């Protein structure tokens, strides 16, 4: 066999296992999920399973609980991503200069990212508890919040969850943006300084446009992750009070693995997957566009 052909065969053999694995363990179950979503299928009474067409999807759109979950997820995602980008950008600017203090600060500030999201939910549940919580007690005592605490307040619970997500993930956004800042061509910035540009002008004309790929990356990562949020919400509020913080993923888990309504749960999961795919595709196209622009092609 000639070398080129042997080389090709070798590379194919190296790549095949992962593709096969993902197809069997990932794509096959997902395809089955599409199948399940077309059935009225409950594990409690599997003998009564029957084909339901798109009924599960119609129910999601018409059922107020599901609609609320969709709206909550959208508000949560928009709110969390907006504040994470804003605070993350300020943090990245503050950490830009490479000195000992900043290197230590960066390492320490990453801690929230590494903590189990489950534990993050528990930490804030404890801190915000209205009766003994270190923060919740005083907020309630001074009349700033509902006497039952922020997480039990119909109107404030979702905002509180956004706050928790901001606490957990802003450091990651800051890190990505900082990497973007450090990759900026220093000669252009120096030239601008020599020409007498102010800090604000440099930021607006040079930093922000050239940073666009990093900003978009932070945006895509956080949007996709916030949209499928589960752990922290499950622990901190469980979707309550009422359905005030019920998200799509929480809704799907409750339907599927607590009520065993596999058909409905699969439909919710598939719908979420579809929305995420659309968001991700839009962002990837924006990144490519921004990349081409930044590279002057």
């Amino acid at each position: 066999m000639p070398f080129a052909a042997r080389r090709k065969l070798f590379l194919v053999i190296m790549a095949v296992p992962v593709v096969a694995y993902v197809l069997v363990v990932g794509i096959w179950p997902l395809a089955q999920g599409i199948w399940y979503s077309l059935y009225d299928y409950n594990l409690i009474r599997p003998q009564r399973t029957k084909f339901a067409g798109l009924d599960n999807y119609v129910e999601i759109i018409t059922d107020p609980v599901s609609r609320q979950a969709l709206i909550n997820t959208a508000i949560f995602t928009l709110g969390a991503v907006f504040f994470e980008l804003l605070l993350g950008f300020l943090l990245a600017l503050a950490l830009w200069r490479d000195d000992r203090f900043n290197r230590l600060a960066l390492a320490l500030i990453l801690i929230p990212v590494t903590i189990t999201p489950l534990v993050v939910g528990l930490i804030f549940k404890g801190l915000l508890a209205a009766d003994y919580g270190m923060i919740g007690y005083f907020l309630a005592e001074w009349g700033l919040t509902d006497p039952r605490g922020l997480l039990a307040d119909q109107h404030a619970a979702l905002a509180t969850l956004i706050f928790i997500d901001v606490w957990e993930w802003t450091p990651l956004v800051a890190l990505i943006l900082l990497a973007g800042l450090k990759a900026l061509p220093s000669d252009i910035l120096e030239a601008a300084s020599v020409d007498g540009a102010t800090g604000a002008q440099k930021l607006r004309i040079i930093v922000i446009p050239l940073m666009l790929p990093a900003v978009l990356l932070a945006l895509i990562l956080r949007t996709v992750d916030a949209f499928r949020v589960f752990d922290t919400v499950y622990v901190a509020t469980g979707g309550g009070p009422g359905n005030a913080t019920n998200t799509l993923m929480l809704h799907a888990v409750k339907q599927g693995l607590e009520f065993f309504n596999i058909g409905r749960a699969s439909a919710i999961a598939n719908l979420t997957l579809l929305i995420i795919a659309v968001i991700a595709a839009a962002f990837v196209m924006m990144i490519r566009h921004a990349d081409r622009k930044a590279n002057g092609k």
Partner: protein
Amino acid sequence: MTAKYWFQAGRRAFLVIMLVFFLAPFLWLATTAYKPSSAIFSIPPTFGFSPTLDQFRTIFRLFDVWSLLRSSVLIAAGSVILSLALGVPAGYALARSKSRYAMGIAYFLMAIRMIPSVAALIPFYLMMRDIGLLGSWMSVVLINSMLNSAFVTWLMFSYFRGLPPELEEAALTDGCSQFGAFFKVALPAVRAGIIACVLFCLMFSWNDFLYPMFLTRLESKPLSVALLSAYGTKDITWGTLGALAHFSTIPIVIVILFLNRYFVQGLTKGIH
């Protein structure tokens, strides 16, 4: 005092406030573990306390901590090994391949990472039930590795693409075998990438609780699931929870603190 001085002072002050903001909640949970229960539930909350190890004694009485830790380690180690064994060679192959499908496969694998856990969980749960793996830590490894190996492939693809192919080509013309060129030449050159992959897989599988919550049984459940059940049990306090959280949090925090250089590098490589 110049404007520049005040600007620098303001920047430092902002960073100090941010450090307090991001570290204080974490430190609260950590210190809770050393408080007597009376100090945790005092109303109004008190800030001073005399440290005690009672909470740690309690968790060892209530939980089989070593069994939980063993399950966590098995799940994490299993996913790291399987994900890297699958993902690293594939990343190399995709980076070196001249086929027009290579880029498409790489993007497809990156997209796998974005699947919401629940979408994969429900059908996977039924699949594991049918083949009799439900309840074992191996089922968690299988599904974790699906997401992780796709991500590892994508990340290693970026690392190998940044490595000039001339290195292995020279080895190949010198009579080195294909595997030899991969193992002895290419692999050592992307050591930083391998470390980044290990870190990411470790973090994802150690911190996950949705899959183990539904896929494991009492004897195979990891720390993350125990934390949740601990919270739901009646006589558990924040103190015991804080003590238990030590075991689930500290290993990862230490690893990232020491290797954060690779973590950052891997994250930025994953971008382009």
